């Protein structure tokens, strides 16, 4: 069968050094009370925190120096992100730009886009959202109907995007739009654009999620004008760009550490003398986590070598998000605990409440479990 490779990753010394630096930064941040460890770390938007993280050199570290980066290995970025998540740092503001928008602009953007945008991203002053899903195009991404048509030296965009996290707070979206015929596989005729949300022609409608929070939005474009140098890549090359980034998007530690803080708080609430059931269940979760960490680090090392371990990446996300969803289901049974968003007397109750209400999204965002299993099945030669 397909031989999966999860070899022992050897982290370069610059990654080990970065781990020390980011731990010191987070310890100082937490110690000064500038943030409270948050249960859904990378969905928590805190522009001030991101600015401090950028100034401390923790955003866009893999990019060339001329664009505000530090030309470091992608394993350094991997270590920074896993440390941020494990500490419950509110890193949601810069997450998308650091993980995917910045690298896309670097690889496919115009020189102007790179020079104007990337240094601001790495300083933690400029944030991005994802403009892929539409009301009638979720898992079936090739069904996008937002259109971009040529207009003089630029483009006009009409249509709408949905589930656009933080569109009301970020500066830019990368929008996938139809610019031509799709062809038999419908993958042709798609192009990506960098969209400045402060320009005219765009409106944002909030969509509240299960916990009452405002992360999602629906974004409408009407004759929205984009200059041609804010196009990403060749016209019609959008599909390959979107799917080419998926291994990065799916294998990272954000796919199994979203609610890590709940596990850490649960361990403290159970205390040093667990009963047999508590010990078994916590031990089980830790064993799952240890395996996932190795899988994810291995994939990061393969990506760093320039390979495309797409099946392995899909496996990390499928197994990782299943693990994340299990943590609240187990935590609630190990202690006499009822989740509440506003119980200030019991921190774990509040943490649990946030996680329970966010957990359904873990196996949907970034590719549903069902889509991932289809990708894994393809890797196994079943389709």
């Amino acid at each position: 069968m397909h031989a999966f490779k999860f070899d022992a990753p050897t982290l370069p010394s610059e990654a080990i050094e970065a781990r020390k630096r980011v731990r010191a930064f987070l310890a100082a941040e937490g110690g000064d009370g500038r943030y409270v460890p948050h249960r859904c770390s990378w969905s928590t938007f805190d522009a001030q925190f991101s600015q401090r993280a950028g100034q401390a050199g923790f955003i866009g570290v893999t990019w060339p120096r001329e664009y505000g980066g530090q030309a470091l290995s992608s394993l350094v970025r991997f270590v920074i992100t896993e440390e941020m998540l494990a500490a419950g740092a509110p890193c949601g503001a810069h997450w998308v730009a650091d993980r995917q928008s910045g690298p896309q602009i670097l690889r496919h953007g115009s020189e102007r886009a790179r020079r104007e945008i990337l240094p601001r991203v790495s300083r933690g002053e400029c944030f991005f959202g994802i403009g892929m899903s539409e009301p009638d195009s979720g898992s079936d991404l090739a069904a996008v109907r937002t259109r971009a048509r040529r207009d003089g030296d630029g483009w006009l965009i009409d249509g709408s995007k949905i589930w656009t996290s933080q569109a009301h707070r970020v500066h830019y979206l990368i929008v996938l739009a139809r610019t031509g015929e799709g062809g038999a596989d419908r993958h042709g005729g798609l192009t990506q654009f960098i969209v400045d949300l402060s320009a005219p022609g765009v409106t944002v409608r909030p969509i509240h999620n299960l916990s009452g929070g405002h992360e999602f939005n629906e974004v409408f474009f009407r004759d929205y004008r984009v200059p041609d140098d804010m196009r990403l890549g060749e016209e019609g090359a959008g599909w390959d760009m979107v799917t080419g980034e998926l291994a990065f998007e799916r294998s990272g530690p954000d796919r199994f550490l979203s609610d890590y803080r709940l596990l850490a708080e649960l361990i403290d609430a159970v205390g040093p003398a667990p009963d047999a059931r508590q010990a078994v269940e916590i031990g089980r979760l830790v064993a799952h986590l240890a395996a996932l960490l190795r899988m994810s680090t291995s994939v990061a090392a393969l990506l760093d070598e320039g390979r495309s371990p797409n099946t392995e990446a899909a496996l990390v996300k499928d197994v990782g998000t299943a693990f994340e969803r299990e943590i609240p289901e187990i935590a609630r049974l190990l202690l006499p605990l009822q989740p509440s968003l506003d119980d200030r007397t019991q921190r774990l109750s509040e943490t649990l409440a946030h996680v329970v209400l966010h957990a359904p999204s873990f196996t949907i965002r970034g590719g549903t479990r069902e889509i991932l299993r289809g990708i894994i099945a393809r890797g196994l030669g079943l389709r």
Partner: protein
Amino acid sequence: MTTSAADVELTRVLLEQADRLLRGEVTREVLARADGGEFPEALWRACEDAGLPLALVPEESGGVGLGLAQGLRLIRHLGYHAAPLPLPETMLALMCWCEAGGAPVTGSVTLLGDEGLTLHSSGARFRLSGRALRVPWGASAGHVLVQAHDEAGARYLALLPHALVRAEPVRNLAFEPRDTLNFDRLEVDGSMTRVVPGNRAGSLYLLGALMRAQQMAGAMERCLDYALSYATERQQFGRPIAKFQAIQHMLAEAAGHYAAALAAADLAADAWQTPRFEFNCAIAKARVGEAAGKVAAIVHQVHGAMGFTQEHPLHFSTRRLWSWRDEFGSEAYWQERVGRLVCGAGGAALWPALAGE
């Protein structure tokens, strides 16, 4: 642990040789006869000729000198092929015995941890008492390597020849011998004992758990191979059942468990001779054992009624998974160990324990 390029090459050659040998020799007939209680002498001799029992014995003692992490790869192959031999046990027992200063012996060697055994010393002689359950090939192995404590708590290894051991036959679900051994103030000559080196982390029981974890990783890969072939060959409703999304998703889920199991098993193998070895072995047996049950259930579902018969070889692998997950501690046993360590250290200590200081 770092591995030299020469080690990697040696391992590659040895694994290839072993794979060829096992592919040719571990036939369904051999497996069926082993089920019936017949020891596969020819297979054992072929493995001996290839030097496999001595794979982990240092070269200066006449062995191959493979490192444990590489040796565990070989053990995973043995699990893949369901080799009905105490070869993993022999490899690890001889490694420990030679490490403690003993000389390698020929023939098979089984091993057992120190649960329920005591060693009383009187001068240069020892007396061993107690009862050991489910000892792999306990009645038929040429030697038994026993780990036991004396009254002062010192750890000893004793290599007992077959003739000294009283055994009652018991089999596991795969019909592999898992015998009961009785020691009734058995006289053990000083020449048969060695002090366990003080720096030696972990017990024979721990190594046994890691051995079974690696064998299970191999057996799961075999199960997935069987299931993938079956799903693409078996036609229903006019097409291969692999084309049904329900089947695809079941096998994708099984692949996820297998991938996590593989990662956990190697996490422990790579931690050999580091302070993390015991913790990682516990994680490995816990994670792999859980995956074993889930993968076995899924591959049987995919094989339908055919997998529930002896007409198809799937059972040689799944009956081993159902046995091995409970040997040397079930996942609950190891999960509890991990959980107690983690809770004892507190929530803040978990992340550095996993990601490194």
